Structures are given as C-alpha cells and as structure tokens.
C-alpha cells in the first residue's frame, strides 16, 4: 500500500504539494491526473523517496519516510519499478544490458538474469531488438523497454511519471494496456498523466491534483 499522510513539500523557488492525504491499495491501478506543474512529479518523487516531505510522511510497506535511514533507501527502491517520460535508458549499453541493470544491482545470478530479461523482452515484444542501443529504437520501443526494466525485478509497485508524454496516441494506448496486464498480475500501479482523454473510461481510480493540492480522489 502507498500511503501519504498530510504530506507537504515546497521547493525553494515555490511549487510542490500541500497537505496530501492519499492511500493506494495493493493491486490497485490509479491515475494521477493534472496539468503540467500541478505537483504530479513531486508526488511521485516523494513516493520513491527522492524527496522527503517537509510535513507529514509517506509510508510504503514497512518503509516510513520519517524514519528511513539513507542506507536503507536503495533496498526500498528495489521493491519499486519506475517509468519516466524521458525513459532514463543508458545510451552506452544495449537493450538487454539496460533491462538487466536492476538485477545486477540486486545481485541475481547470471543465469537468472538471462532468463528474466529474455522473458521481459518477450513480454514487451522486443526480443528481436535485445542487442539494439536505445538510440536505435523508436520512442514507443524505448518506453516499452523502460517498462521492462521496471518490471524485470518483479516489483510490488510501479510508479510511472508521464510515460506516454513522448508517445503518439496509438502507442500510448498500447502502453496503458500493457500496464493493465501487469496490474492484473498483482502489481500496484500509480501513473501520472496530464492527458485525461487517454485514461478516462478505463475503470480505474483517477486522482486529480491541481496547484499541489489533491482535489478529487
């Protein structure tokens, strides 16, 4: 479960989120919607503890932002898969190596890494492009690779920050469907988007944020 209790965070130059109370249940697929600059990314950064609330706390599983020690954060992040609008793929290594990275970090054995990465590549339909470098892939393929990288370590939660931001409508719908499949297998998903048309009518919870305040949940 992702739980935000009375969370506020303000940047030095203004902006952020204010007094957010939110709970996302296990296996839930929730959309965080709001215009650019409304605080969606801040909320996600607070959730993966890249930022720490100035007021309130974020609790995910046994990890509490008000108590967690710096050296425990890497272990907490291993339970979370993250997907970004700008992919964050490493251009100096191929698709296979990019997806394998979280497994190396966790310390998986070589054979298991090969099995898991191959399975993930099949799941996103990019098994034939495992040797390709990110700049040899289309935007949609890069984003699918990003999903595979988040998925490969079998996380409890996926946090996706505007994953469709750089994609065309068709590819965006495909990505939403892919995330729905992942959610059906038991992964909690919180996805930020500013595109209401993309997410409406899919039967998932929509959390609306404006000027750093959660308006509707």
């Amino acid at each position: 479960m992702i739980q935000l209790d009375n969370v506020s965070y303000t940047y030095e130059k203004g902006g952020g989120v204010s007094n957010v109370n939110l709970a996302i249940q296990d296996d839930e697929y929730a959309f965080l919607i709001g215009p650019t600059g409304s605080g969606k990314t801040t909320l996600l950064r607070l959730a993966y503890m890249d930022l720490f609330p100035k007021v309130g706390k974020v609790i995910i599983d046994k990890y509490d932002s008000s108590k967690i020690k710096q050296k425990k954060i890497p272990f907490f992040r291993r339970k979370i898969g993250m997907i970004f609008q700008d992919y964050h793929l490493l251009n100096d290594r191929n698709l296979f190596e990019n997806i394998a990275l979280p497994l190396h970090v966790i310390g998986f054995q070589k054979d298991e890494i090969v099995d898991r990465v191959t399975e993930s590549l099949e799941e996103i339909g990019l098994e034939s492009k495992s040797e390709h470098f990110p700049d040899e892939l289309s935007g949609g393929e890069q984003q699918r690779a990003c999903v595979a990288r988040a998925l490969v370590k079998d996380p409890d939660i996926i946090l996706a920050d505007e994953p469709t931001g750089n994609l065309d409508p068709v590819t965006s719908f495909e990505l939403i469907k892919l995330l729905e499949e992942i959610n059906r297998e038991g992964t909690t998903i919180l996805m930020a988007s500013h595109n209401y048309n993309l997410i409406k009518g899919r039967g998932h919870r929509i959390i609306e944020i404006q000027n750093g305040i959660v308006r509707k949940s």
Partner: protein
Amino acid sequence: MDKITFLLSEGLKNLWRHKLTAFTSIFSIFLTLTVAGSLLIVSDNTERIIEYLRDKYKIEVFFKQNISDKRIQEISKEFKSIRGVRSTTVITKTDAKKIFKSQFGEDILNLVGYNPLPASCVINLVKEQKNKLNIRPIVDRIRKFSEVDEVNYQGRLINRIETAYQSFVKVSVVLLIIILVVSVLIISNTVRLTIYAKKELIKSFQLVGATRSFIKTPFILEGVFHGLIGAFIASLLLYGTLEFSSGFILSLTGLIIDFSFFNLLFLLSSLGIVISFLGSSRAISQFLK
C-alpha cells in the same frame, strides 16, 4: 560472485565508454609515475653515484725534502688512522722519479743533476658514509704534521658535491610527496569530469536501488585500471630509456645503473593503484555526498 564479475566488467567497459577521460587520466598518471619512477631510480642509485664520486676524491700530501722513507711510512700509517680516510699510498722520491720517466720519457737526474721530486702520499677517503663527508678536519690534521710541505685537494668541489647530495636526498623526498599529492588531485578532478558526464548513469543506478558502494565500485575500479595502465607505460618508458642510455652512462662514468624492470613495474603499479584509488574515491564520494 556474479555481482563482483559485473562490477569488474563495468570498470573495464568504462575504460572504453569514457575514452577521453581515460586517456587524460592515464596520461596524467603516466607523467606522474615517470617523474616519480625517475626519482626513485635516481634515489636508489644515488648511493652508488656518491660512492663513485667519493672514490675519485683524493688528497695529495707532499713531504718536505730529506724526510726518510721510514718516517714517511710511519706518517702514512697515522694518516690512515684519521677518521674518514680509507687508504693511503706512499710515493717515495724513487717512485716519483720512475713516474716522471714513464710520463716524460726522460730521467730527471740527467735533466737537472739531482732528484727534486718530493715524496708524497695519496689519501683516498671513505665511500660508504650516509652523512655529509667533511674533508676540512682531515686536511687540518694532516697539516699539523711538521714533515708535510703541501696538501692538494679539491676542497670546494668535494664540498659542493657533498652539499648537493644531502640537498638532493631532502628535495627528492619532498618532491615525491608533492608529485603524489598533486597527482591525486589531478586524477580526482579528471574522474570528477567523468562522473559529471555520467550523472544520468548514477541517477539510474540510484533509481533501481543501487547502494553507494555499488555505484562507487566501477568508478574506483576504472581509476585503478587507469593507474595500472599508466604505471605499465611509465615502466616501459623508463626501462627503454635506461636500456638505451646505460651503455652511454657506463662508457662516460663507469657507472652501472642498477634497476630491475619487474621491481620498477611493481613499485610504479603500486603507486599508480594508490594514487588513482585515492583520486577516484575522493571524486565519487564528493559527488555522492
């Protein structure tokens, strides 16, 4: 085990991925270690050099006329007991006459009717002495003998050599320390450039749950590989230079430069590893603060 293999291969692959910074870093280490290696070889051989020079030091003592050979032999023994004297060689008037004949081809008795050449004693000084060899007290004691007419020695030159040797020992230690500290800072800044260029990579590592040590290790290993490569090239260059010039040095000075390639490689590799390890650890730790 697979984690260690991954980190090692990351360190190795980074050499290729960060070609420009690798080149800069290896070149800095190479220059540093070439200077440091030269200093170490020279320091190692300085004792031999100073012994070689001291071997050339000579004090020539000329005796007054009419001093018997027996007395000269006695005085020579007393000279030998002076602290700092290694050996003495007596040249009697007869010996001097023979030397004159061998050098000039003429018998001095035929030239001037008598033997004007004085008896003398050549004094050689100790070679193995760590401290500065001070020749002045030796000369003063020799001059106290009433039988001594004249003392010839290269006092100023010997003093200069001895002072220079002592200064060299001190300066080389200070210089070595400065070189090593500066190289750590240069390498640290070079690695920092790599790290800034790889901010994205570090961020990705952090986001997928990498610990600090996991992020640091490939950068440190990369630095250590730079150190090893720089040390290897510096050792090769010094070895080549010494091999090339040893014949020349030997014919010029009679001095054999003593060094072993593997000792040099081991010493420079150790130095290279230490400075690159310190440099890259400093850079990555500062970045991750």
